[in-house]
């Protein structure tokens, strides 16, 4: 009877459900009735379906916060803060290296050879890449650009920001979790009143 079993499994495993990684589930979760059904099922587990970035991603939250839950969230938050800088740097670096108009958005393709080539050819990018790869989050001791980029991609897949459709091909798809990251950045900016602008100077609009 439970046609939504696989969705629950995926959510319980701590995954972010977005159109890139789980198109079918993401589609099904648009249905509020189904969300309610899933929430009913999850209630005894103290979980509930949450969404971020205008429904771009779904994930599970605690319904009631107990001491353990709060401790888990605290650790997670510390981690999120620690990953913020390397992730931001990753986004700006790829934008520059790949010559994109904007930072990566869900659905964009990142081809490693292209990325490697761009960094090999440009000493400044190469240096920035080396710094980024050495960051605790990516934790690469590699000397070559190729190995550094591979390690970065690997970690990003582990954390759900990238997915690799074919294990043997060096190209990656950006997932909806990047939207979540942008949401987090906006939230922190607003909460902390940081003077970080996202509106262009007026002239460009007119």
């Amino acid at each position: 009877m439970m046609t939504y079993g696989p969705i629950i499994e995926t959510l319980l495993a701590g995954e972010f459900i977005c159109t890139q990684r789980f198109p079918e589930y993401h589609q099904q979760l648009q249905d509020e009735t189904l969300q309610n059904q899933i929430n009913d099922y999850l209630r005894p587990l103290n979980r509930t379906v949450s969404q971020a970035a205008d429904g771009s991603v779904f994930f599970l939250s605690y319904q009631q916060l107990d001491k353990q839950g709060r401790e888990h969230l605290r650790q997670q938050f510390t981690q999120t803060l620690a990953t913020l800088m390397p992730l931001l740097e990753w986004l700006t670096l790829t934008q520059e290296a790949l010559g994109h108009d904007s930072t990566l958005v869900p659905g964009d393709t990142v081809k490693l050879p292209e990325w490697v080539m761009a960094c090999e050819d440009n000493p400044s990018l190469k240096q920035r890449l080396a710094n980024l790869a050495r960051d605790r989050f990516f934790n690469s001791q590699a000397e070559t650009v190729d190995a550094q980029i591979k390690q970065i991609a690997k970690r990003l897949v582990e954390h759900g920001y990238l997915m690799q459709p074919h294990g043997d091909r060096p190209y990656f798809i950006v997932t909806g979790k990047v939207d979540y990251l942008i949401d987090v950045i906006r939230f922190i900016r607003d909460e902390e009143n940081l003077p970080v602008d996202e509106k262009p100077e007026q002239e460009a609009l007119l």
Partner: protein
Amino acid sequence: MAGEQINVSDQRIEQGEKRLNLIGRHAAILMQAYQTGVLDELSVNEGVLRNLLNARIIYQPESGQGYRLRAPVAQLIANLVVDERRRSIQADVADKLEAIRGQVDAFRKAQQRSDIYLAELKLQVIEERVHDLVAEFDEAIHSLWNRLNTDFGFAANLDEKMAENQRAQNQIERLLEGLSMIDYDECIALADGHVKLRHLLVVQLQRRTSLQRASMLEIQHRMIELMSRFREQQSRSLLVGNMAQFLRQHPELKISDYTEQSQVPTLFNQARAIRAAAHVDVHNSDAQRETLAALHDALQQTRHLRGEQIPLSESAQATEQFDDEILETQQRQLKQDVDQFFINVAQSQQAQSALNYLTQHKLQWHGEIWLFQVLSEYQTLARSVQAQLPLQRHERPVSTTNNVQIIEDLVVTPPKRVA
């Protein structure tokens, strides 16, 4: 290789120079054509005409008609002389409509005077004008689609793309305004009582322009969508860039811990993963044994129906490798349920509907899938068994006009038993 490239670009430069010279040499007649809309053929010799045609400066819309300036050339002149009237499309449309009115008037007068030759000529001119009017919009629409479909790929960066998009949107607005200047009531009045005029002004003009309007509205819609995507991309890039810069400049920044708030923001409330999720446990060897036994029984029971001597059916063999994929388990369950259905029918005394069986036994399968499986399982049965278990399809055509038959239900009748 490189030499060839230089040659090609050399050639292009040479050709460009020649053609620009051509424009200069015939500036007077080209300006005359710009002013009146048609090139005065009598004032140039055939060679010049051919050169201008080859250089893509003028064209002949249809053979037998006058030569005109190509749109880019006309636009170039409009830009050079800052001819605002020509540059704005409304004025252009107004112009053309005015010309059509004038020509219709002249046509009527010629008809009244029974000057058939002149009337015919005027009619041709009207046809041309209508064609021009429509063609201009067509050209603009084509170019707009082109820009849209390439995502403004020709623009170097996001800012330029946004500027181009804005420009295109302004153009659409002008085009729509231009279109709205065509008054269909007036066209009907103008065409009054004349078949050919009616065809031109009402049927042709109206049909084409209403298609064009729809097309333009669609383009407008997509342009706005694309623009908001551009804006989103732009603000995202700025946000990421500025935030990275800010954090780099303020490494000591203390961000408050939102998880200490009584209501933790959803963004930061991400529950710990529970790995031991509830699902069909195909690794459970007890359950597996049970499943296998049940399956084996079912197959044993159906073997006489199949009339086959194969010791193990495919599904039984497959169970030996028992892949832990839920899909396969479901597939097998479906097969088993269908087998059970046939057994049930064979043992009962009356015909049974497959769908009724589905609901009576509270099976979870979707009706369509169930029927499909029943049908395909039935086809695997031996002919002699099929003869004993006649299967009847309840079908209906899709509609009165479409004779494709949809199977609504399947009814299987048990073998007649001798009491």
